[in-house]
C-alpha cells in the first residue's frame, strides 16, 4: 500500500470516529439538557428508559426515524427539502479541525480556525432556506430573525477570535493550543474580555436563551423548523446540539488551553472543559428570559462590537510593546 493510500485510510478512519462522536455527543447533550433543566426546575427528568433515562435519546431517535415525513402544502419543495442538510453538514464539517488531543484531530489545517468560522457561517443559509421554503408565516419570521441575528453576532465573534489569533500567531488549532503551554489565554485580561465576548456571541450564534429569538416559542411557535417533522426535524435538532458542542469546544481550545492539563489523558481534559462551558450555558438557558429583537441587535452593534474592536486595538498595542 502506498503511503498516500495509508494516509487516506487513516484520515477516513479518523473522520468516521469524529462522526460517531458527533452522533453520540448530540444524543448525550440532549439527555444532559433534559436532566439539567429538570434539576433546575425541581423535577427529575426522564427516568424510565435506561439508567436515569440514559437511553431516552436513543428511543427518541428511533421514533423520529420511523415518523412520516410531512411536506407542507405550498412549500418550495427543493428549498424546503435541502435546508436541513445545509444546517447539519457544516456542523459536521467543523469537526475536521476540532483538537481532542495532541494527535486526536482529523486534520490539523494550517488555517484551522478560519476554516471553522467560514463553514459554520453556511448554516445561516440553511436556516433561512427552512424559513423561506416552509410556506409558513411563523417560519418566515423566524428565518428572517435568525439571518439578522447570526450575521450580526458573527462580527464580535470573529473579532474576539482575532485577538486569540494575534496572541498565538497562528491559525492552526493545534498551534493555538501549543501557544497556551505557558498559561491559558483567559488568564490575560485582554483575552478574558475576548472570552466573555466570545461566549455571549456564540450563545447568539446557536440561538440559545437569552438569544433564542428565531425560535421564540411564545411568539413564533417554533420558528424556522415549525413545519419539519421526523428525520428532517431530527437533523435540525442534532445540528443544534452539535453546534452547541462546537462553540464549547472552540471556547475550550481558544481560551481554556484545549487538551492541555496535568495527569489525565488530553481528550479527557478537552471534554471536561467543553462540558463545563456547556453546563454553564444550560444553566443560563433555564434561568433567563429572552431579549427582544431590537434590544439584541443594538446590544450586538452598540455594545459588543465596539468593545471587541477596542480589544483588538489594545491587544495589538500590547504585542507591539512586547516586541
Amino acid at each position, binding site marked *: 500500500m502506498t503511503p498516500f493510500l495509508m494516509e487516506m485510510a487513516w484520515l477516513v478512519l479518523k473522520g468516521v470516529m469524529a462522526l460517531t462522536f458527533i452522533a453520540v455527543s448530540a444524543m448525550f447533550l440532549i439527555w444532559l439538557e433534559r436532566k439539567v433543566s429538570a434539576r433546575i426546575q425541581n423535577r427529575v427528568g426522564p427516568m424510565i428508559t435506561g439508567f436515569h433515562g440514559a437511553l431516552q435519546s436513543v428511543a427518541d431517535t428511533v421514533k423520529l426515524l420511523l415518523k412520516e415525513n410531512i411536506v407542507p402544502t405550498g412549500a418550495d419543495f427543493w428549498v424546503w427539502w435541502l435546508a436541513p442538510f445545509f444546517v447539519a453538514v457544516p456542523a459536521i464539517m467543523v469537526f475536521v479541525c476540532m483538537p481532542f488531543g495532541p494527535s486526536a484531530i482529523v486534520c490539523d489545517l494550517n488555517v484551522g480556525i478560519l476554516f471553522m468560522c467560514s463553514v459554520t457561517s453556511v448554516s445561516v443559509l440553511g436556516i433561512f432556506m427552512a424559513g423561506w421554503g416552509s410556506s409558513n408565516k411563523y417560519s418566515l419570521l423566524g428565518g428572517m430573525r435568525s439571518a439578522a441575528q447570526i450575521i450580526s453576532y458573527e462580527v464580535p465573534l470573529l473579532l474576539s477570535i482575532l485577538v486569540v489569533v494575534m496572541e498565538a500567531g497562528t491559525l492552526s488549532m493545534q498551534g493555538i493550543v501549543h501557544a497556551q503551554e505557558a498559561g491559558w489565554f483567559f488568564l490575560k485580561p485582554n483575552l478574558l474580555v475576548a472570552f466573555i465576548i466570545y461566549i455571549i456571541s456564540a450563545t447568539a450564534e446557536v440561538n440559545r436563551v*437569552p438569544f433564542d429569538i428565531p425560535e421564540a416559542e411564545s411568539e413564533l411557535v417554533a420558528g424556522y423548523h415549525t413545519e419539519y417533522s421526523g428525520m428532517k426535524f431530527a437533523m435540525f435538532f442534532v445540528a443544534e446540539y452539535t453546534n452547541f458542542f462546537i462553540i464549547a469546544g472552540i471556547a475550550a481550545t481558544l481560551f481554556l488551553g484545549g487538551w492541555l492539563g496535568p495527569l489525565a489523558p488530553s481528550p479527557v481534559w478537552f471534554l471536561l472543559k467543553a462540558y463545563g462551558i456547556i453546563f454553564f450555558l444550560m444553566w443560563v438557558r433555564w434561568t433567563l428570559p429572552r431579549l427582544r429583537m431590537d434590544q439584541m441587535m443594538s446590544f450586538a452593534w452598540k455594545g459588543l462590537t465596539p468593545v471587541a474592536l477596542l480589544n483588538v486595538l489594545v491587544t495589538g498595542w500590547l504585542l507591539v510593546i512586547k516586541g
Partner: protein
Amino acid sequence: MKTTMVTEELIVNMGPQHPSTHGVLYLELKLNGEIITDCRPHIGYLHRSIEKIAENRSLVQFVPFTDRLDYLASMNDNLGFCLAAEKLLQLEAPARAQYLRVIVAELNRIASHLLAISTFAQDLGAYATPLFFAMRDRQKVVQIFDELCGQRLTYNYIRIGGVAGDLTPDIARTINEFVLYFRKMINDYDDLLTHNIIFKVRSKGIGIISKEFALDYAVTGPSLRASGVKWDVRKDEPYLVYDKFDFDVPVGANGDAWDRYSVRIQEMRESLRIIEQAMGAIPEGDPVAKVNKVFRPSGEVYMRTESPRGDLGFYIVGTGDVFPYRLKIRTPSFSNIAALPALIKGLNVSDAVCALGSLDIVMGEIDR
C-alpha cells in the same frame, strides 16, 4: 435608476392554538415587518352559555357553574356569586364562615397570581423554570383546598349561607405553615425575576395603560392598580370582614407590564398578611347558617368583589321564581382583553406577547 419595492401587510393568525394566547384566544394580527398595525381579537371558542344555563338552575344549583368561569380562582368566583345571591336574599353567613371565606379567597388569590406571573415570565421566554417554581408553591395551596373540600380545581366550597366544610386543626396548621413558608419563597421570585435585568428591559415601558385609558376601558384589578389608581373593592366597598384587617393596596407608577407584574408580587405579600390576621382572629361557631334549600329570589342586585383579575360583578334579576330571571356575569378578563387591540397597536410581536401576558386573562371567564 429608481426602483419601487412592492410591500404588503402580513396577516398572522395568532391562535386559537398558540403557545402564548393562554387558552383559545384568536388574534388576527396585521403586521408590517414585525410591527403590529392592527389587531382583531376573536373570542367565543369556550362559550358554554353559562348565563343561559343560569336561567334554568336554582341559585344553589348554579354555584358549581361559577367554578368553571375563572378556573384558576374558583374560590373567588364562588364567593362573588354567593355574596350577590345572599345580598339578593338578604341572608348573612355566620362569622366563622366569613373568616373562612376570606382565608380561602386570599389563598386562591395567591395561587392565581403565582400562575399569572410565571406564565408571564414564560411569555418573555424564561423557559418553564418560573412556571415550575410557581406550580410547586401553588400545589401547597391546592393541597389545602383538597383537604378542605376534596377538590383541586373546581371547589364548590363557598355556598349560599356559609361554606361547605369546617376548618380542622390539621388544615389550620397547614395554612399557618404555608404562610411562613411562602413569605420566604416570594424572595425566590424576586431573585429569579424581579431583579433580573433581562426581565426588566423586556417588560418596562411595554403596553402602558394610563389612568384615563384604564377607566375608559373599565380595566380593573392589578392592571388598574398598576396605572396608579388606588382602587380595590376589598378596601373601597368592603365586603365580608375585610374592613377588620390591616392591609395595603399596592399601586404602580407607569402602568406598564412590569408594574402589573410588580403589583401582583406585592399583592401576594398583602394576601399573606390578611390570611395571617384572619387565622389569628377566626371565631368559633357554625360554618354554615341554617338556610332553606329552595330560594325564590325577587328584585335585582349588582354585587362586585375583587377577584385576582379585577372586579367580578354578578347582576342577578329575580321575579319570585325558583330560577333567577336573568344572571349577568361581569368578568374582569372580558373588559381587560377588550383593551388589548388599543394596547398593542404599534408594538412588535414580542412586545404584544408581553402585553398580553401581563394582562393575565382566563378564557373561561371571557367566553363564559
